[in-house]
């Protein structure tokens, strides 16, 4: 398995292909629906973001609360397509990676190619397991959003798979084509 430590640059992104297994270590930031809405509003007003997105990875995740003595509660990915409308703006601002679940829109795929970024997926509904890769978590913005606040996570060998790469590779499309029965082929 390849390992990756943010920040990441064009060269690293270009080395990744749909289907690659990656273990991410280091810092990733969480943001989901409500945080994305606020970040895009900030960008539109020319204000600064809660963290510099250049070269960074955003994990679409809102955790369950940490039990006493734990770093974080269950912490799996949420459905990425809800962030599709915001994503091209963040990629334009320099964001390099995203972790979520499920396929992305054509607009996002085009933006991934244009701005050289990568979309990773983790296993949805495996939040208890994924939480074991998270070593530190702190809220850095939008505390009032609760589970949806922006968090800085320190992760160790967070297992992900490349779903959309800069070459237009699509894990979902490739997987589905392989197992789709003839009656359902276009």
């Amino acid at each position, binding site marked *: 398995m390849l390992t990756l430590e943010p920040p990441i640059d064009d060269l690293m992104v270009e080395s990744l292909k749909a289907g690659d297994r990656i273990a991410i270590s280091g810092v990733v930031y969480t943001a989901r629906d409500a945080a994305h809405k606020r970040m895009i509003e900030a960008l539109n007003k020319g204000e600064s973001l809660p963290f510099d997105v250049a070269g960074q990875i955003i994990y679409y995740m809102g955790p369950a609360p940490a*039990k006493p003595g734990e770093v974080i509660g269950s912490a799996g990915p949420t459905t990425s397509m809800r962030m599709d409308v915001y994503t091209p703006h963040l990629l334009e601002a320099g964001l390099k990676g995203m972790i979520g679940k499920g396929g992305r829109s054509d607009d996002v795929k085009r933006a991934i190619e244009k701005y050289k970024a990568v979309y990773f997926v983790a296993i949805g509904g495996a939040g208890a397991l994924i939480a074991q890769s998270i070593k530190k978590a702190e809220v850095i913005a939008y505390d009032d959003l609760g589970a949806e606040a922006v968090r800085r996570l320190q992760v160790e060998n967070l297992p992900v798979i490349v779903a959309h790469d800069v070459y237009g590779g699509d894990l979902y499309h490739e997987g589905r084509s*392989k197992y789709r029965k003839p009656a359902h082929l276009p």
Partner: protein
Amino acid sequence: MSIREIQSDKITEAVAELCKQANYYLPDDVLDALKKAQNEEESPLGKEVLGKIIENADVAAQKQTPLCQDCGTVLIFIEIGQDVHVVGGSLALAVEEGVRQGYAEGYLRKSMVANPFSSRTNTSDNTPPVVYTNIVDGDKLKITVMPKGGGSENMTRFVALTPAQGRTAIVDFVVDAVDKAGSSPCPPIIVGIGIGGTADKAMLLSKKALVREVGGPNADAEVAALEKELLTEINALGIGPQGFGGIITALAVHVEVFPAHIASLPVAMTVQCHSARHKEIVL
């Protein structure tokens, strides 16, 4: 028959416990269905994903931590015997307080927002639950708690078919809707289908279909045959576990039927992710 009294605080206690248990422990029938799927899946990645989902259930149970960070909208089905009298407070408030306590004590995520099309302010305690109360015979109170995740719930679909469109159109509607949902609802999914009644009745049937034992066929042979055909067609789509490709897109299809108006054939579909959580108790 005499009236049986049930204290409202016992109901609160029971609901709080059900919320925690449902979020920590995957039901045995769901686990068995996942293990069977792992065995049958042809895609190596799909097989591996199913293994991780099963491992996740082990970790959650062992650590008493939620299976999924999305601890859901709390759906509650209550069957209240007509010879039951709830004393000490209102049933509705007792149930709501149970959700509040369960989600606080259980370190479960609070996902409910008020003013859903404007401020979307988190209610901070995961209330209110969505509660359906049915009055039945007897002197028992049965409570089923079903935490329903947002990702799969967003794939809910409804169609008002005409009688002429019939069975073929039902199959086309369901298979097309599952195909379009693709990877989003966290496959392998369980598909609940409600046919008949009114739009709201069909929708409720599609939800209740999800608490049936996974893969146990409908008692009516004609309905069971429809379930089987739908499952085969859905699994021919190739979506597979997590949408990475494979032969197991759905673990089961459960269909519930109710008579319909001479002009109508309403069909509702509720999608359940693989984290098919529900827990019940009879007081």
